[in-house]
């Protein structure tokens, strides 16, 4: 009796059900959870894949940790690998600010290394610091030159910079391969498809890593300050975020696009010089070691933030180092690329998934 009467007084609330709802913004917490979950899924998938291919996963994990962080040699290796990655990651990240994809960092890297090698091999000898500065300048300018055509095409003709930058990287890599194995080949050791050894080397730091890591961090810091605290940087962000607003505010969008792309190419070119004078010391085919390509996932995972790029590049350097130590076990550098691709896909999907949320709503 009482039940019936109370039902009459208070009608049961309307039936509720779960509904998928899309959030306009993703807050920091959700983002971090999404990233954490992606990394977890990725670790599980890679581990399972390696186990299926009958690799000793536990061994690899232990060895990886000692090979990268556990020893001072591993740490040096990681820092050495991180230097070019920070620069190529920053190259992609800075372009992302204005909504541009420079995925041809590989080509600018090659062209930068080529220019630096040219200066080192063919100019009259000079003091090392002077020649290294000259090589860095040449590499940066060469990297910027290699992106001029895609930049102009994008800004004035609307030609997809994604396609042009990538196609030109194939051109640069073939040209460097041709030069190193042909006209510029070392006359002393002609069996090697590489140029003569370049005498100017980046000075080593105390712990064995070379100066490249400091140059990379310095360049990224200067760029970050400029992007975040100057009128120019603000205009770049506005032009990337909302073109209509930028036009209304009188921002010269085309000019900004070209400037940003030139800076992007410059950074990747500088990475080429650092790898040449810090590690390889000879111009040879395959010198980029896919650093240019890896800049894309680094910038994407960092969400376009330059501080983020420095951190994520460190993480990728560890990955690459593991890849190098796994080469003895039959995993090639290309497998590292594949594994990176998997991470990129999971993170892109997780970023999108983080925008969805379940909410209880009343059914009408």
């Amino acid at each position, binding site marked *: 009796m009482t039940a019936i009467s109370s039902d009459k007084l208070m009608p049961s609330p309307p039936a509720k059900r779960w509904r998928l709802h899309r959030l306009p913004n993703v807050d920091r917490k959700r983002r971090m959870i999404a990233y954490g979950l992606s990394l977890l899924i990725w670790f599980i998938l890679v581990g399972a894949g390696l186990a299926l291919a009958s690799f000793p996963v536990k061994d690899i994990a232990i060895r990886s940790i000692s090979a990268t962080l556990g020893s001072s040699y591993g740490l040096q290796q990681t820092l050495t690998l991180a230097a070019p990655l920070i620069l190529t990651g920053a190259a992609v990240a800075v372009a992302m600010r204005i909504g541009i994809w420079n995925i041809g960092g590989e080509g600018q890297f090659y062209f930068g290394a080529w220019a630096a090698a040219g200066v080192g091999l063919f100019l009259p000898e000079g003091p090392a610091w002077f020649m290294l500065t000259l090589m860095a300048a040449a590499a940066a300018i060469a990297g910027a030159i290699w992106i001029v055509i895609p930049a102009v*095409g994008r800004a004035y003709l609307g030609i*997809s910079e994604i*396609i042009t930058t990538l196609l030109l990287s194939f051109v640069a890599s073939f040209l460097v391969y041709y030069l190193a194995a042909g006209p510029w080949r070392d006359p002393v050791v002609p069996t090697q498809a590489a140029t003569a050894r370049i005498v100017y080397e980046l000075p080593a730091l105390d712990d064995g890593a070379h100066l490249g890591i400091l140059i990379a961090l310095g360049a990224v810091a200067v760029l970050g300050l400029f992007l975040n605290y100057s009128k120019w940087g603000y205009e770049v962000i506005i032009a990337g975020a909302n073109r209509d607003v930028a036009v209304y505010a009188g921002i010269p969008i085309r000019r900004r696009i070209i400037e940003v792309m030139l800076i992007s190419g410059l950074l990747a070119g500088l990475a080429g010089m650092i790898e040449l004078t810090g590690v390889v010391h000879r111009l040879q085919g395959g010198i980029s070691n896919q650093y240019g390509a890896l800049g894309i996932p680094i910038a994407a995972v960092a969400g376009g933030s330059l501080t983020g790029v420095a951190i994520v590049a460190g993480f990728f350097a560890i990955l690459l180092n593991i890849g190098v130590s796994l080469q003895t076990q039959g995993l090639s550098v*290309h497998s*590292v690329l*594949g594994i990176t*691709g998997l991470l990129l896909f999971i993170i892109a999907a997780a970023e999108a998934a983080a925008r969805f949320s379940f909410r209880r709503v009343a059914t009408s």
Partner: protein
Amino acid sequence: MIELLTGMLTTAVIAGGVLALAGMGELLTERVGVFNLGLEGLMSLGAVGAVIVVNAGYSPAAAVAVVMALGLVLGAIFALGTVALRADQVLCGIALTFLGVGFAAWIGRPYSGQIVHTQFAPIAIPFLSDLPIIGKAFFQQNILVYFGYVALPLLVHLLFFHTRHGINLRAVGENPAAADAAGVSVQMIRFGYVMVGSALAACAGAYLTLAFVPAWTEGLVAGRGWIALGLVTFANFMPLQVTLGAILFGTLSSFGFAAQANGWPVPSVVFTIMPYVGTVAFLFIRALSQRGSHRLIMGPAALGHPYFRDER
């Protein structure tokens, strides 16, 4: 001279066939509004997959079927990210390229340099194959060439411009909200055509090893996926123009053949870079020639934009 022209044209047609297949796959994907930058990866996996199947003793036709099924599965995964979850299409595409190129290099290692056991044999079309110059190039090719150059473009052209479904799918790429309001299932169409496009890209990879270069080596695809992406833009997103453009782009690869045959004193690197430089040049020529006109210059209006029903 006649011999040289015949050789060049034959090389151009064979080299262009890869682009015709991959380009048509990308065209189907882009026309429904999805940018698939993963062509290069799909083609790599297709190329290595075809070698594995054929060298295990199966026929080339079976290899194509297996590889296309693989393409459908990979396309479904890509669509799960880009269509269902609406993730960034550029990032997912680059991820697919990395994944495909890297994984193909890994599983292809034991097969690297091995000669493919059986390739598709050329089928001569009576009378036509005896014509001078064009006879050998156009009418004495293997079945995949005929499929990529004739059957597929005609099929896609008819589908796009002569069926109701074609109107629907183009609407999905141009104005998904309007298509949705008219009762077209935007997500289903996008999902489906991303899968079909990926299958064609994988088929283009199989073409590489079953009808073109008779062995798998790492880096065999060598940017052909990106050239195919350029081709779709160059062809104004029209199926028959994709096919014609494929021969034009294929011609860029055939100069190397001519140089080798005649012993031209030019370093081979000039011919190696020609397809890439040529593609960039063609994109510029097209953009310059269409400045100010109202043609479909930037592609389908919704290309690259995920569709959300509540944001109408």
